[in-house]
């Protein structure tokens, strides 16, 4: 599965995207975030305040409880500041 990072989440993790092999236990966006968080200091830093992290499944906004089965790409990013 492809995981993308944007803005300061991308900067903290140090890469814009990566391919990950997920254990079968990872069912939701929230599960994925918790799993990523344990991958190292840079991830822990990026997700240190999970409440403000937003996510999208296949380019559509998704809540932490959203199921990620069959997703092609999951993105994590801070609150948006466009416009």
């Amino acid at each position, binding site marked *: 599965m492809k995981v993308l990072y*944007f803005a300061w989440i991308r900067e903290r993790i140090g890469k814009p995207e990566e391919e990950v092999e997920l254990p079968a236990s990872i069912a939701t966006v929230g599960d994925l975030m918790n799993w990523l968080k344990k991958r190292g200091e840079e991830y822990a830093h990026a997700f240190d305040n999970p409440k403000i992290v937003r996510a999208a499944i296949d380019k559509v906004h998704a809540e932490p409880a959203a199921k990620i089965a069959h997703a092609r790409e999951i993105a994590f990013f801070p609150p*948006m500041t466009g416009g």
Partner: protein
Amino acid sequence: MSVRITEAPIDVAAETAALARGRSDIGALVTFAGICRGEEEGAPIAALVLEHYPGMAEEEIKRHVEEAKKRWPLSGVRIAHRVGRVTPGETIVLVAAASAHREAAFAAAEFLMDYLKTRAPFWKKVERADGTQWVAARKTDDAAAGRWKKPGREAAE
């Protein structure tokens, strides 16, 4: 409907002209231009650098344009959003909404801007002489987007 994400400067006059060209049913045209200010939080800035989520940004904006067209009788909508480095005085975002009457054009332009601010995947970084800093989301923007969740909104409210 036209939704464009661009690294080149936005020509507001050309965008709005394109919306009205060859149409005789447009009585009201509301244009919003979001412009890069020379100061943020009281200190001068050199530029804003805008990052976006390619693919999702266009789709998310188009979804909101479709929603706006369901809510109000619109003759046309045109949106352009800059990405990359934007300097003070340049247009960051342009939303133009055309309708037979002004109520629909005003409401649609406001609705689209409120959603763009809180739901379209763009992120701004401030570039100053002494470094860069990500812009924090404004709480008032969430409140502004939230008001559209009420069913409808009448001109005379």
